[in-house]
């Protein structure tokens, strides 16, 4: 089996307020980075996983995300496989 590295990004759904992102945006403005319009902060997981092929890996990580890693009520996630 091959070893893959999967990157999973989890953000709060659009429309759900992200207080942390807002506070960091305000801080960036205070530091002079006024060009910043919005900041959203999420989690990112780097998962090393064994498997035969890319499709299998993606579907596994998708399953983990759905049942455990992300909360479907509040969060959206994106999966990316690093080569």
């Amino acid at each position, binding site marked *: 089996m091959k070893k893959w590295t999967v990157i999973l990004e989890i953000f709060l759904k659009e429309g759900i307020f992200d207080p*942390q992102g807002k506070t*960091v945006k305000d801080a960036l403005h205070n530091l002079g980075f006024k060009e910043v319009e919005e900041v959203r902060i999420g989690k990112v997981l780097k998962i090393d996983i064994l498997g035969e092929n890319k499709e299998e890996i993606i579907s596994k990580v998708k399953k983990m995300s759905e049942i455990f890693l992300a909360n479907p009520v509040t969060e959206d996630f994106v999966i990316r496989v690093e080569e």
Partner: protein
Amino acid sequence: MRVGVVVFPGTNCDMDTYHALRLVGHDPVYLWHKEHDLKNVDVVILPGGFSYGDYLRAGAIARFSPIMNEIIDFAKKGGYVLGICNGFQILLEAGLLPGAMLPNITNSFICKEVFLEVINNNTLFLKNYKVGEILKMPIAHKEGRYYISKRELEELKENNQIVLKYYGENPNGSLENIAGIINKKGNVMGLMPHPERAVEEILGSTSGLNLFLTLLE
């Protein structure tokens, strides 16, 4: 000595620290984060809490508060600065002390009484304690795992900058059980435990008294 207690938005141990200082006879002043004036204090205390909610990283945002410019200058000129818990985290972020804080090894907030050993008392803040003395104080933090690169750790040791270590159990996974450090000159100190919560018998410990008493001189 005149003591100032800094209030950042989200600081929550300012009143406790103020109370402890009053208890031993100080008449402290509060310093507001937006101010540029240190009100002629001799000692600046950055108390514990959750400045800016600890959002992003503990201390990362407070470090850029207007008053921090003054505090950095003050410290560089030899002024006494003490950071407790979140205050310690802010001093690390501001570069007044070396190293950084990581999330606790337990991956959770920890509130408990811990024991500390005084490793070096060569700083104003600890001069009334004896080297080897064992202290009892509460900790209450989520990011208290002290970390520093190998090279800098050697430097820290060479200069006797490690002043307090956890004794017995290391609660948060800090490198070398480090609980408190000073800068090279010894005028800036940071510690994770809360001395201001250990100044009255009824609350379980008086180990912190000497720290505040020293500042009376």
